Each structure stands twice: as structure tokens, then as C-alpha cells.
């Protein structure tokens, strides 16, 4: 499995912009630190099938119903997006 940062890990809940809690250990961890090897990735737009990158922190959501398609940004958490599908 690929390594993930805590802030990209499924079992990380952010406290604020720099740190959060690792639900698996109950510990406070830094957002930008690497999580242990086997940690599952958080569904985010950047991991979604419908995400088409355009530039570094911007992209298009191919799943959007608007015309033209609405933008999306890679870092957005997608656990609530019903259209999310793993890449």
C-alpha cells in the first residue's frame, strides 16, 4: 500500500489546520506527518474517478450536472459525495 499523510488518511479527524486525532490510536498527530504504512486513504476528489486535474490545485468534476462542468479541487474530502468512485 502507498504511504499516506495523516491528513489524507481515513481514520484521521482534523482538530485544526495543522493537527488532528488518529482514531486508531487515539493520539494527537500532525497533519503533514506520514501515517503508518497500512493506513487507508481518505476519499478525496484527487482519488476520485470523476476528477480531472487542471493545474496544481484545481480540476473539474466530471460527475457534476452543470454545464459547463463545475470545478473541483483535489484536496476536498469526499466521504459524503455519493458519486465518489475510487480511481
Amino acid at each position, binding site marked *: 500500500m502507498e504511504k499516506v499523510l495523516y491528513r489524507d488518511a481515513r481514520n484521521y479527524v482534523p482538530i*485544526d*489546520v495543522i493537527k488532528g486525532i488518529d482514531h486508531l490510536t487515539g493520539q494527537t498527530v500532525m497533519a503533514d506527518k506520514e501515517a503508518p504504512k497500512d493506513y487507508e486513504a481518505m476519499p478525496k476528489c484527487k482519488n476520485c474517478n470523476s476528477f480531472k486535474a487542471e493545474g496544481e490545485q484545481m480540476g473539474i468534476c466530471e460527475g457534476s450536472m452543470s454545464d459547463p462542468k463545475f470545478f473541483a479541487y483535489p484536496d476536498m474530502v469526499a466521504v459524503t459525495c455519493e458519486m465518489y468512485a475510487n480511481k
Partner: protein
Amino acid sequence: MAKKLKEVLADAGISMDLQSGGKAPEMMVDREVKRAPHPRVKKLKDIYMDTLSSANDEFTYWYTREYMMHDSEIPVIRRAKALKTAFAHSTPAIYPGELLVMRKASYFRGSFPMPWLSEGFYMAHEDEFYQEALKRGSASVDEHSKFGQGGGNVTKSFGKVVSIAGKFGVRQEEIPAMLKLAKMWYGKSVDDLGNKYEKMVPEYKTKEQIMRSIICMFDSGYTLPQGREVINYYYPLEYGFDGIIKMAEELKAKVAGKADGDGMVGMNRLYNYEAVIIATQGLQKWVNNYAKEARRLDKITKDPKQKEEYKGIAERLEWIEHNPPRTFIEAFQMIETIHLAVLNEDAISGMSPGRMGQVLYPYFEQDIEAGRITEDEVLELLELDRVAKTSIDCFASTGVVGGVLSGNTFNNLCVGGLDKDGQSAVNRLEYLILEAGITMAMPQPTLSVLYDEKLPEDFLMLAMEVIKCGTGYPAFMNSRTAQEFLTKQYGVEGMNLEDVRAWAIGGCLETSPGVWKPLHLNGKEYWIPGGAGQPTSVGVHFISMPKVLELTLFNGVDPRTGEKVYEPHNKKLGTYEEVWEQFKLYWQKTCEVLALTNNIQHDIWRKNNMAVINSYLKPDCLDKGHLINELGYRYNGTFSVESAGTITLVNSLAALKKLVYDDKEVSLKTMKEAIKDNFGFKDAREVNSFSLADQEIREDAADKWEKLHFKALQAPKYGNDEKYVDDILLAWENFFCEDATKYESLYGFKMYPCQISVSTHGPMGSATLATPDGRLSGTTFADASMSAFPGTDRNGPYALLNSAATWDQAKSQNSQLNIKIHPTATRGIEGSKKLLDLTRAYMRKGGFHIQYNIVDSKVLQDAQKNPRNYRDLMVRVAGFTQYWVEIGKAVQDELIARTEYEGV
């Protein structure tokens, strides 16, 4: 080294000692009462104490995405759909140890921008949108407002975190989307559209000048368009979400296609009910997402106790997603959910839970009786609520969140008052609410006692104990005075005696109308109070009275900027009466222009950005089928004119009257020169202290103004029971309370006076030159509306109360008096009794509000020098409690300088 004012005065044999009624002990004295919260609460509090205020784009993104898809839809439906999508996509954030869950955004202390209201303020300063905001005057106040440098404020960008508006931390990865979303609202936001149309007011240019000179602190319609009101939890508690949807479906069928005699908006009821259904479905999905997350956490958690708790959370959420709550903890979770839902619907400060102890009492009574919960467990939940409420942030500009709110969001919880039948409404749960205020000392919810002579003595004594924790709460608000005001203001809307008694405080200290509704639980009926009025502290915001006087003296020109604000009056101002009359004319011009422009902003808000969720919670929206924008609320005459700097104005008028006109010690021309030259002192910002005593004399000034400055400082001052100056206060109040009613809100009701200053005395002082009372340029005004200027109340607290009670306070929505007392003065039971006597004396004189900072000034001085040692220190600012380290320096200086009473 340049000499400070206190040294100059000491040389002249005048003490600037800020103690009154004795001498404080040399040693620093701690607060008398301290207790600890439950261990789980302590852990969550520790997290909060180390948490940065954080914002993200999630809600903004989904709201915008949905909204932009429906440009041909009816506005209320479009808004409801956007809200539904945004709520349905909010990522749940649950933290170990919580029992009551749900957050504004997916951070512990999270928030998000609402560019549909305003977008210019969080652009880079070089961005054209920000420059535009500066030109309009809406960003001027940002330059005079500062956040405290400590606590959770992200005052500077660092690493991968960008600081927005000097407070909110945003991840770098979110910034491009945040700006893109903001730009999508350009020309569409309430701010932009409002500005387009307010420009059609003939005197719009004067309004721009008023804002740029910081005569008025900020616009009303797009900054915090709702709040300073009391929420109503009744419908979700009585019917549940499914019940509300069912009710709306039935009513929709009843009104479809019918005007029922109302050719203007009768037909709108159909769309409004549909909007209620859509928005409620969004809330259900939001709750459901949290329930699913709790189930997921239960699965991955090993600790059996924590697993059980996640299971319990999931079960409660799954139940309240559809049904009315059955138990105390379900009801508590329901109102937490509703509270956050409303706060996410709009930029809001001051959404008060109101008389929450009376709303939750039915569940408390039955659970205790059945042995389903213990008082200790209830106390723990009340403590948890304090962590949740303190974590509520509101994303707005520096001027609004820093300059006005000091980072607080004023979720005011009221206890006491009278019940529907006129008896004391205090119940056992309210004792526990006060107790939680001691064990879990955090700024929110701030507490207010709705004082009535019928309240039990032991309850009032407990309130005194809480005050002695030094938390700055509970405040005391006078039920009798408030009820007189309510009868006068809302009589035209049919308010009866029962409804008058349902009032509570919205925000810091805004008297807000309420109603009683019958709640049914296991076959028993309880009448519970809740809000039934529109937002207050909307309309004409914070007019700086000392600044209007400055413009009066300088013929309509702002001497700080050199810009013409008002038409020149070209009068000689040869008599005191002429000054007073001209002051009133400029005051009225200010109110007139601001009432018109702000009405337009609010009108844009009601057309495109109306409340759906907050609306349908409030009687009688569901019954009538009309939301806030169509006068669905039972009480709609809630707009006001807000004053700021009352006592600085009163002292200044007294000094002018005495020195220039009565005793003729100095000519007006010389007084004006002295004001312009700041009595020979440096500007406060140069000195970097905002309290008078610390100001430094300029070397080039020598003793040019020394004599005059002494006289100005020694002229009669408010707060000493002195008729000369109290008569000036009386004249002002009589004028203001009457004049405010001449302006009409967009809803067709007359406005009323509102006399809170929040933190505006800091930034407004910063933009005002020296004043005739001897206050120096850039220093703060006296805080609140009835507090004395620091160090000028020399005759003890009872003299101060007499001065404050000079006028009929029932003519105003509120007034505000804060007193600082050394902890030794209130020690023990005797001390508590004396404090209660003092409070009662003021209430009996008709005073509306009184509150105390029980703190040793030396502690505050030390906290300013060593903020790291005082992360937990709380103080009462104007109408609210806040962490010392999160308050801007100007207000900190003013708090240190306030007169400290050594005896009561």
C-alpha cells in the same frame, strides 16, 4: 524617555491611581472560587485550548455548486436546495470523549466563508475586490481592529497555513478554490448587490464618508444579517424532523394555488413550505452522516467504553434524524444540532439558546424521576455543551470579528425570569447550569440572569458564587425594565402579558421577544419559552458619538483624514446649546443615511439570502406559511439604531460646557487647537498603548497644553452622582430614545435605541482625535454605555449606580454597566451578600444590566506581559466573556485601566 501622562500628573500632585474605596493588597490575589470539570470534559477542553481557529471550503463549495445550477429557480427554493446540498456534504467530525456531537465544519473550531454574503474582505489586500471594499468604507475599520495575538487566533501565515482576516487558518491547498468560489459571487453577493442599489440613495456619498471616517463601524445587511436573537427549538422537539416535513406537506397541499386574500405574497406560501421540506431533508442527511460516522468509529475502536459511547451517539442520531427526542440526552443532542444548523445557514453572531434550562426541563424532570439519568450526568452534559459552544467561530472580516466581536459569538444562555403565569421560572436544571458555569469556566455560553424580585434567594447567591469565579458571567438583566420596553415596542404587533414574560437575551444583551409553546412528553404538557422575533442589532450599526461631536466642532470635516463628511454647518458655536443642537443634527443625518442604505442591504438579503431554517423554527412561520422575509415571525419590529461611546461623549460635552461656556476658561478655538494637537501627546498607536495613563508627551510640545489638559481631565465626569454631568446624560438619552423611533426599518416598523458597544470602543477610539474631556487621540472610549471612563468614578459604586439610573432605561432595548472589583472585596458569604445587595440596588433603580469583573488588575497586567501563563484567563469585555489572550491590545489596555473597586 518621554514622560507618560500618569507621571506628568504625579509631578503636579494628581494621582492617576485607578483604585477606588481602599487599597488593593500588594500581592497578586487570585479569584476565590475555582472548581474542576469532569475528566472527559477536561480532556476536550485541553484540546480546545490548543486549537487554532480553522476554516475550509467544503460548505462553501457545495452551496455554490448547487446554487449556480438553479439560476431560473424561485429564490427561496434555490436557497433551500443550496443549503440542503451543503449540509448533506458536510464531512462529520467526531472526537473521542464527546457525548454531544456535530460541528460547524470538520474542525474542532471550524468555520467557512459565505461569499454569497460578502467576498471582498478576504481577498489579498492588492486584489481589486479588497480595494473596492476599502473605497466603500467597508474595510476601513479593518485597519483599526486587531485580534489578540494569542489563543487560537491565526494572526500570521506559517508553513502550509494561510492566515485570513488575521484570525482564521486555512490550508494552502484550499486557497485557490476559496478565491475561485469568492469570485463566482462577485456582483451577486448581498454586499455587491446591496452596494449597487444603495448607491441610488441620494446621499450615498455621505454614507461612504461616514464609513471611511469610522463614524459608523460597519454595514448591517451582509456582515452578520441574523443573530442577537433567541433561537426556538420547539418544533423539532415537539414534532421531530419527519413531523415537520409532514406538517409542511399538508400545509403545502392546503395553500397550493391560493392567495387567500393576500394578493401580494399569499401565493408564496407554496414555495415557502416546499423550501422548508427541502432544507429539512438536508438537515436529516447531515445528521445521518454523523450517525454513519459514529457507527464506523464504533467498528474501528477497540476500547469497550468508547465503543459503547459511539454506539450510543449513533442510536441517538438515528432516532432524532426522524423523531422527536424522548430523553434528556436526545433532546440535548437535538438542540445542539439545530443550533449549529442555524449558525451554518448564515453569518451569525449572538444566536442565543435563550432559556435553555426551561426548554430542556421536561426531559430532565422525567429522566431524573425515572432514574434514567443522574444530576451528575446532567452536569457533565452541560459542561460538554460549554466546550461545544465555546468552539463556535464565525467567519467574517477583521473589523467585524476582531473589532466588534473580539472573536466571541455570543451564544447567551439565560436563567430565571418569570413563567407564563408570572411566577419565578427558576428550576432545578438552572441551578446545574450555573454550577456548570463554575466547574467548566469557558466563555460560552455566556450566562445571564433575568432578574426578578421573585427569584429564589439561594439561586441568586449561587449566581454570586459564579461571578466570583471571575468568569464575567452571569450578567444580571432586569426583567421588569425589559418587559416595559417590550410592551412599548411590540404592543403594535399584539404582544400580550404572557408573551412579554417569554423574553430572553439575544446576543450580549439585546432584549428579544419570545413566546410560550406547549411541549408534550409522555402525556404531560409543559409550556416552554423560545424566540419569536427577527434578529436584533440590525439596522444602523454603532455610531461613534465622540466622532460625531468631533465633526460638529470641525464644521463637518474629519480632521484625521481631511475629508468632508457632512455639509458644513458654518455656525459659530457660540453657546453650549448651539453645539448640542448641531451635534443632534449631524447625528440625525448619520442615522437617516445609514437607515436607508442598510434597509437596501437587508432587502437584498431577504430577496436572495433569506433564512429558511431559522425562519421555520420561529413562530408563526409554519402556521402562516411565510418566512422571515414576508413577516412570518410573530415580532418583526426588531431593527435598531446603535450608539457607541456614550460616556466619552457625555464627559466631553460636560468639559466643553464647563470650560468653554460656563466658566469661560478657554475659548472654543483654543480647545479645538489643543484637540488637534492631541494636548501635546503622541498618538496612541505610536506609543502602542491605548490607555490614557500610558500616553507619552511629545518633546516638542513642552508644557503648551499642560494646564488646559489638567482642567479637561478634572472637569465633571460621569459616574460620581453629580448632577452637572448626569443632566447631560439625561438630555442625551431623552433625545436618543425618541429620535431612534423616527427611522423605519424595511419591514415597516419603527426602530428603537440599542446601547451596547461590544468592542467598538477600541477601534472607534483609534480613529478619533483627543476629546474635550482630556481623553487622548487613539485611546479607547469608555466601555459599554453606562460604565465610567477608567479612573474617573471616584465616589464609590453606589454613586456610579445613581448616575447610571438618571434616565428611564425602559425606553431603550438595553444599557450596559460593567464594574471591576478586586477579589478581596467580595470574599466569603459576606462578600457575596454585598455583591447581591449592590446588584439589587441597581435593579430596583430600574437599571437594565450590570456585570462584574472580579479580578486583581495586577493579574491583568501580568497577563499582558506573560500571555503564555494565562491561556485560561477570562474577562468580561462589554456584554460578553472572552479569553484574555484573544482580545486585541486596545481593549486589554482599557480593561487594565478600568477603576478597580476595593470595597462594595
